[in-house]
C-alpha cells in the first residue's frame, strides 16, 4: 500500500470516499475547512455530490435527508457548528439514520479560538441534544487511525443505523502524516428501510415522532437495546505498558499520543507508567479501564479541557484509586515534559 502525506482532515475525506460516501453537506469553519474543501474537490471526480449548505443547521438536515433515502453521507464541522447541529443530531439518532459526523474540536466556549481542544467531550458522549440518545464516538490519535476509523464509522453507522461521530481535535486535523488507504471494494444496502418509493410494498415512514408516550417509550427502549449492544460489541481502546504499571495515564485522541511520549520519558527514568487510550469515547471502555487500573496507585487523566472524560474515568474505577487530573484549555496543548512534571509532582505529593 502506497503511503502519502496527508492532513488528518484530508485523510478523513479520502477514507470516506473509499468507504463509499458520495455525498457531503457542510459549512466552512476553521479548523476543519480543509475537509470541506477536500470534498468539494474530490467528490465531483468520483461522481459524488458536494454541496455547501447555507448553515450547519441546514447541513445536518441535508444529512438527515440523504441518509433517509439510504445513502452514505457525511458532514464535518467544528465546535460552534456542532452545537448548531444538536437538534438535528437528536432527530437523526431517534429516526435511526446512519450518518457520519466529524467534529474537529476547537477552543471554546463561545466563539473561543481556532486552536485544538477536547472541550466538547461531554457534548459528544452524553448527548448535546435533547433526549436519551447516544452517538458512537471515535477518537483517533494519528492520521492513519483517523483514516481507518472513518471506514469503521461508515460500517458502524449502517450496522446500528446510528449516527457516528469522529471526534478529532485541531492537532489531528492540521497534522500531516503518511497514510495509506485500503482498496477494498465496499458495498452497502439500506434498501430494507430507506425511503426509496413505495413500490410493491407498503409505504414507509422514517420518523422521530410518536405522539403516544407508550409508543415513544417503546422506540426509546429499542434505542437503549441498541446502545447496550454497542456497549457489548464496539468498545475500542489501546494500552501501552499497562501490565506492570504503577501509574496509569488516561488520555484520548492526540492527547493520547502526547501522553505516550510521557510514558517513554517516565520509563527511561525508571517510573512504571502506563497509558490507557480510549478509542471509543462512547461506548466508553469502563471495564477495560477498571482492569488496567486495578493495581495502580495513581491514575492521571490528561485532557485539553477542564476535565470531562475525567468523569467517565471516575465512573470506571469508582475512586478505588486516586484519580488526578491535568488539563489545558482553549487551544493550549499540554506538552510531554509539562505533563511529566505534573506527574512527578503528583507522585511526590503522594509520598
Amino acid at each position: 500500500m502506497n503511503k502519502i502525506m496527508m492532513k488528518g482532515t484530508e485523510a478523513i475525506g479520502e477514507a470516506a470516499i473509499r468507504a463509499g460516501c458520495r455525498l457531503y453537506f457542510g459549512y466552512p469553519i476553521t479548523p476543519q475547512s480543509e475537509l470541506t474543501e477536500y470534498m468539494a474537490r474530490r467528490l465531483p471526480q468520483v461522481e459524488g455530490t458536494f454541496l455547501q449548505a447555507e448553515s450547519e443547521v441546514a447541513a445536518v438536515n441535508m444529512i438527515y435527508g440523504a441518509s433517509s433515502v439510504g445513502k452514505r453521507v457525511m458532514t464535518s464541522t467544528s465546535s460552534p457548528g456542532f452545537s448548531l447541529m444538536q437538534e438535528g443530531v437528536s432527530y437523526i439518532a431517534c429516526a435511526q439514520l446512519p450518518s457520519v459526523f466529524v467534529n474537529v474540536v476547537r477552543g471554546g466556549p463561545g466563539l473561543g479560538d481556532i486552536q485544538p481542544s477536547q472541550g466538547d467531550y461531554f457534548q459528544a458522549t452524553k448527548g448535546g441534544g435533547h433526549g436519551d440518545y447516544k452517538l458512537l464516538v471515535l477518537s483517533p490519535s494519528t492520521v492513519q487511525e483517523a483514516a481507518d476509523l472513518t471506514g469503521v464509522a461508515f460500517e458502524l453507522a449502517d450496522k446500528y443505523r446510528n449516527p457516528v461521530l469522529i471526534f478529532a481535535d485541531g492537532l489531528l486535523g492540521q497534522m500531516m502524516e503518511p497514510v495509506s488507504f485500503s482498496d477494498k471494494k465496499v458495498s452497502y444496502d439500506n434498501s430494507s428501510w430507506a425511503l426509496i418509493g413505495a413500490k410493491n410494498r407498503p409505504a414507509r415512514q422514517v420518523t422521530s415522532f410518536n405522539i403516544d408516550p407508550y409508543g415513544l417509550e417503546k422506540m426509546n427502549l429499542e434505542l437503549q437495546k441498541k446502545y447496550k449492544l454497542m456497549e457489548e460489541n464496539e468498545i475500542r481502546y489501546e494500552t501501552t505498558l499497562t501490565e506492570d504499571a504503577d501509574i496509569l495515564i488516561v488520555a484520548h485522541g492526540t492527547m493520547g499520543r502526547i501522553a505516550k511520549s510521557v510514558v517513554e520519558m517516565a520509563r527511561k527514568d525508571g517510573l512504571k507508567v502506563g497509558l490507557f487510550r480510549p478509542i471509543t469515547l462512547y461506548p466508553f471502555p469502563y471495564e477495560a479501564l477498571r482492569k488496567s487500573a486495578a493495581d495502580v496507585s495513581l491514575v492521571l487523566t490528561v485532557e485539553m479541557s477542564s476535565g470531562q472524560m475525567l468523569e467517565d474515568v471516575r465512573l470506571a474505577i469508582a475512586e478505588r484509586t486516586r484519580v488526578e487530573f491535568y488539563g489545558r484549555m482553549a487551544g493550549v496543548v499540554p506538552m510531554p515534559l509539562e505533563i511529566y512534571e505534573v506527574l512527578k509532582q503528583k507522585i511526590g505529593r503522594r509520598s
Partner: protein
Amino acid sequence: MTHSIIISGFGGQGVMLMGRVLCQAGMTEGKHVTWLPSYGPEMRGGTANCTVIISDEPVASPVVDSPEEVVVMNIPSLLKFEPIVRRNGYLFINSSVVDREPKRQDIKTIKVPANEIADQLGNLRVANMVMLGAFVFTTKCVNIESLIDAMKYKLKGKDSSIIELNVEAIKQGLRHVGG
C-alpha cells in the same frame, strides 16, 4: 533515532513547505514522520512555524517541548524558540534576516545567509531551500538525495527551470556548511 525539529519564520518565507519537504523525504526513506503547522494569533501575515518529527520508531507526540533542531528565519522566531532548543541541539539562523546573536552557549548555532545566497541565485524565494540544504547536510536527518527528490515531488508540475533553481539552492546551502 528521532529528530524533532521546529522551523519558524514569517508567513511568506516558505517555512511550512520546508517542513513538508523534509517529511516527504523522511517518508520515502521509510521513516516515521509527522508535520504539524502552527499559526500565530495574528490573523494574517504573522509568524508561523511547523514541528517536524522524523524517527525510526512510530511517532508518539507530534508536539515537543524541547526540539533538537530549530530553524529560525526571522527575529521573532529566534526570540521564541532559542530558549527551548534542547541542550547540545542545533539552532539554524537565517542570518540575512536575523541580525542578532543567540545567547545560549550550550547549543550549536549555525548561521546561513539564506536570503543573500538565494539573491545570488536570482530568486529570493528559494532562501528556504538554501536553508534546507544546510540543515539536512548538518543534521543528517534525511539524505540529500531524498531531499531533492522530495522537493521535486512537491514542485511537481512547475517549470523545470524552477526545479533546477531549487536544486541549486539546496546545493548552495549544503555547500555553505561545508558540503
